[in-house]
């Protein structure tokens, strides 16, 4: 079983992002870059699948030059190979163009890997732009079966059973291989690397390709981002503080009734 996991490098989602007043864009320059959390869930799911059923996991990312550091970290936690695709032309576009490029990159990854992929995984969304479109669009581009928000994958002969998380519970789908799934948060967390694996992974050299190396051509773009606005600041609340507690409660009740909350 050959599994390919596409990974996006994003600013650490534990840090609050503000807009840069000069550019009007999110000021993410000084924020640590990490693998998108949902992509790390996809890698953990893939690693557990191959540990139980055999096979190996390849990770690939399209992103700026420093992305190789993120990919090295993933080699310490279950990936056996990693490829980076970096090109100025990759820095613009919408979800459609990203998916179109990724579909072309699959071929290059397969050529480098020396074997086709049986399953392609993406996180269900990235924690920076949160469009949640790329995985589904990638499946369309490749004309492959698609299941979204998967939390468990099991072998079923020459097919796969994917458990999709829904608001009410879950649905099981059986698909042929190869297939594209997007991964939601499973019932476990990604593993921590052990020190030896981490030190070895940090020494790995990540093969890096430009658009021309990878044979990626023009990618259509349909959506233009016009700008960003910060969410409005919360209005200061009303403070009720009388000398006596009983008076404070009475006054608060009065305001709640007046505003028809009660």
């Amino acid at each position, binding site marked *: 079983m050959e599994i390919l996991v596409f990974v996006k490098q994003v600013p650490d989602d534990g840090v609050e992002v503000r807009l840069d007043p000069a550019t009007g864009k999110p000021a993410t320059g000084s924020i*640590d870059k990490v693998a998108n959390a949902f992509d790390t869930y996809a890698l953990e799911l893939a690693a557990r699948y191959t540990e139980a059923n055999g096979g190996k996991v390849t990770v690939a990312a399209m992103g700026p030059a420093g992305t190789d*550091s993120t990919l*090295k*970290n993933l080699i310490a936690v279950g990936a056996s190979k990693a490829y980076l695709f970096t090109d100025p032309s990759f820095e613009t576009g919408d979800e459609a163009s990203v998916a179109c490029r990724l579909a072309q990159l699959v071929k290059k990854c397969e050529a480098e890997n020396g074997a086709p992929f049986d399953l392609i995984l993406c996180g269900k969304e990235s924690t920076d732009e949160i469009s949640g479109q790329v995985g589904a669009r990638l499946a369309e581009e490749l004309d492959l079966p698609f299941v979204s928000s998967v939390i468990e994958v099991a072998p079923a002969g020459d097919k796969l059973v994917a458990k999709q998380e829904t608001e009410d519970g879950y649905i099981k789908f059986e698909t042929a291989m190869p297939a594209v799934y997007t991964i939601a948060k499973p019932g476990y*967390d990604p593993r*921590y*690397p*052990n*020190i*030896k694996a*981490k*030190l070895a992974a*940090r*020494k790995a050299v990540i093969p890096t390709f430009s658009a021309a190396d990878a044979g990626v051509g023009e990618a259509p773009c349909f959506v233009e981002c016009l700008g960003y606005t910060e969410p409005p600041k919360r209005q200061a609340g009303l403070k009720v503080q009388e000398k006596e507690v009983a008076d404070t409660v009475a006054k608060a009740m009065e305001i709640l009734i007046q505003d028809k909350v009660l």
Partner: protein
Amino acid sequence: MGYIISDDTKELLKDVKEFCDNEIKEQVKEYDIKGEWPKPIYDMATEMQLTMMDVPEEYGGLGLSHIDQAAIVEEIAKADAGVAVTINGNGLALKPVLIAGNDEQKKKCCDIILNGGWGAFALTEPDAGCDAGNGKTTAVKEGDYYILNGRKCFITNAQVADFFVVTAMTNKQFGTKGMSAFLVYKGTPGLSVGNHENKMGIRTSITSDVILEDVKVPVENRLGEEGTGFYTAMKTLDLARMWCAVIGVGLCQRCVDEAAVYAQQRVQFGKPIWKHQAVQFKLADMEIRTEASRALVAAAIRLADAGLAYTNEASAAKCFTGDSAVQNAVDAIQIFGGYGYSREYPVEKLLRDAKIFQIFEGTNEIQRMVIGRSVISNH
């Protein structure tokens, strides 16, 4: 940060920090109250290989530099000093083996630790603390064996240890030159472990008596020559003081971190309390003590790595860091005010954890004696 570390180690440190933030920091609150050894945390730490950082590379170890290791241990200590003491306990037990042991002994103990096991260093006795040479435990040679009898106390990791390094008098007449060190493995008849000490702080570490009743130890388990045990123990303590100081730096830093965050949240007289100069000065002194402690530790590590004498520097680092950790914890509590005295807030634990750093691995009075004597001998 006084340690200069590579970008790759910084990536490793991020993992350790994530592990500490997610698996240690909050979880230890409960264990601290109960005084229970948090096995699930140690199982995960073993999985990450954090318990085996002292195994040399030639025995299958990780190949971290000592400065890298110090940065990692400090990160763990920031989350919980008791966890750091436990993890460091493996290093403490391994050090005498690496100092005095033969190749076979080193390999055996390293393998135990690499397989997720634990070691314990049993030097202290009820009547032999700072005066370690006054040990009453005896080892009497009978043919191919030594028969060990005595009682050790305050032994870190004793209840979980797979091997013990035990010091015992082989010849009382020679004083400290009559002390020898032995490897004793778990399960050896006559070896037993007393109750877990109900401690003031570092309550996530386990500390117990070790009782030796006619314990038969093969001659090949002796570490080095007969009579070298005290020398081995003192060499071990030089190293141990350095690592004890590393943990103390983590505690110092945690005090700064907690106080700095709280001082920005807490508003009195219409402004966050850090804007009052009295609080700023406290924070500054805490930071100065932390950085100075770290710099002393780094200096001792550099000397040790270069193969130069570092006994005084290790003592200075241990002593200054221990005092700094206690003072930083006192100051952090003062900045938190009444809340600092409450168990609902994290800083009272820091003072309980810090106090032992003025006591174990040689009290700070002993460290001052070591340094004081050396000052005189140099003039």
